[in-house]
């Protein structure tokens, strides 16, 4: 059942990754690798390669914004921050997710 497990997980992650990013950014600003690491550690993305294309779209859509920070010693980094647009989107997602998760949990409980 490993392939099925991987396929199911991939499909679900694909739908929620964007909002997981928004949720992480609502806590604080992060730079790319920081975001990637946080998502991988939580098992929310299998490939770092899918994060950056997603960020590119979210930036275009105005859900996140970026700014460069150049420390005195060290490399300049681009930090991602959530916009008010993104915050509103995250609130809607939280409601939808709450509804779906509750319904799915209940269904699985009935079955068991």
């Amino acid at each position: 059942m490993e392939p099925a497990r991987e396929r199911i997980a991939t499909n679900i992650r694909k739908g929620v990754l964007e909002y997981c990013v928004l949720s992480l950014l609502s806590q604080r600003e992060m730079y790319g690798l920081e975001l990637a690491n946080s998502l991988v550690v939580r098992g929310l993305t299998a490939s770092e390669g899918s994060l950056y294309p997603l960020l590119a779209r979210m930036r275009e859509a105005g859900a996140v914004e970026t700014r460069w920070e150049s420390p005195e010693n060290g490399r300049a980094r681009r930090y991602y921050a959530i916009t008010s647009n993104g915050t509103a989107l995250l609130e809607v997602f939280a409601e939808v997710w709450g509804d779906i998760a509750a319904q799915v949990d209940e269904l699985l409980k009935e079955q068991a």
Partner: protein
Amino acid sequence: MNANRTPQQLTRYLQTLEASLADAPTSARHEILADVQAHADDALEQGRTIDKVLAALGPVQEHAAQYRSELGLPAEPPIDSRRASTILHGAAVILGILTGCFVAFLMLFSGSPFEPPRSHVNDLMMKTLVGLHGLGLALFAFIPALLAVLSLVLPQKARMPVAVANAGSSRQSRSPRSACSMCRLRC
């Protein structure tokens, strides 16, 4: 490892990614490349190997396809001048090498028009161009090939002057149109 030096694999990855996104808006493409470059630099600095970094990003074509889908671009980039220019570059290198071999061969066995023929058979080698001017002379025959190769391996910024020199040096072997599409690498 020196963190300030970009590994060649990464450079190649970024170049392929850039070429695969040639039809994306310039600002979006720049930001994408800056993101991936910054990610890799940070990961390398944290002690990951370049192989691990690139493996985690996924095959470059897949990565590019994800960008294309997220940015709403058609799945395949339109056939652009880059691919055509790569093919022309390859042809120029091969043509340059073949011509170089041929000319070097002639230099080995043909005499100088400026030297009066000598009767002694042992002097035969001495009378050829290479015999007169040394083996190094034959290397000049490979200058067009070298120019053609340079325009492939030099960093993007340094390519322009070579491309111009190239267009001049091998004008006879290629049409002006090919030189033009080569310049479009930067233009």
